[in-house]
């Protein structure tokens, strides 16, 4: 047992410095990789209040919770850092059904990129078609940005949320900054 008093630990975010004027660091989030075999999908949705039947590469939100379906059986569940109820709710809701839940809150970090050139800036180094027909608001997928793997989620017509592994985050942000130098806003 600890025999000295321990002060609450300080968090050090993976993106320490200031970022681009178009780039906002997201607040700390709780993040889980949730894997669900077919038979657990509905029950898990009921437990967390999220629609897990939505198609692959879509985001669903309910209140402050969000889930991005990144694979046929894979969801990235996001919630404010204070939401500590997810594992418990799933455990209770799924009882003896199979699922896998892994906490990745610190594995990655989020940024929000917004503005009229947000799509073009991402397309500088991401090969996806980000036209609004091919990549509508609500679409979310893992993809490539230069030499980094990212999760790209379109949260608005000119607004994207990116999830990036922490050690790649400075690289992605520096690239976006470099790309953004030629755009006025």
């Amino acid at each position, binding site marked *: 047992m600890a025999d000295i008093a321990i002060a609450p630990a300080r968090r050090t975010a993976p993106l320490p410095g200031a970022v681009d004027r178009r780039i906002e660091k997201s607040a700390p989030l709780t993040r889980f990789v949730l894997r669900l075999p077919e038979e657990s999908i509905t029950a898990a949705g009921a437990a967390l209040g999220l629609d897990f039947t939505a198609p*692959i*590469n879509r985001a669903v939100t309910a209140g402050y919770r969000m889930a991005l379906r*990144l*694979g*046929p059986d*894979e969801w990235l569940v996001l919630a404010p850092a204070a939401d500590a109820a997810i594992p418990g709710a799933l455990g209770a809701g799924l009882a003896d059904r199979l699922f896998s839940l892994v906490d990745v809150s610190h594995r990655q970090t989020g940024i929000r990129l917004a503005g009229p050139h947000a799509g073009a800036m991402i397309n500088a180094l991401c*090969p*996806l078609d980000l036209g609004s027909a091919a990549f509508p608001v609500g679409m979310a*997928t*893992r*993809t*490539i940005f230069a030499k980094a*793997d990212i999760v790209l989620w379109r949260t608005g017509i000119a607004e994207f949320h990116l999830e990036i592994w922490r050690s790649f985050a400075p690289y992605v942000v520096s690239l976006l900054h470099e790309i953004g130098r030629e755009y006025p806003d």
Partner: protein
Amino acid sequence: MLVISCPYCGDRPEIEFSYGGEAHVVRAPASVTDEEWTAFLYQRSNARGSYAERWRHAHGCGRFFNARRNTVTDFFEQTYKIGEAPA
């Protein structure tokens, strides 16, 4: 950069994928002869023309799947999920 149709995600750019070599090479059990083991481990049809191969949508849904591609033109004939039979 090819366009590859992931059976889960649809058409996506090649750089999201990793290559998995020839498909339908069944892993030999430990009981096989040296020749059979060597065939499994090293010998590939390496076909010129229609070729069954594996890809993984590594920077996407993460799934492995199979494809048939013409190795002369690089055009895909089809892609299909693991466990499914080619059309």
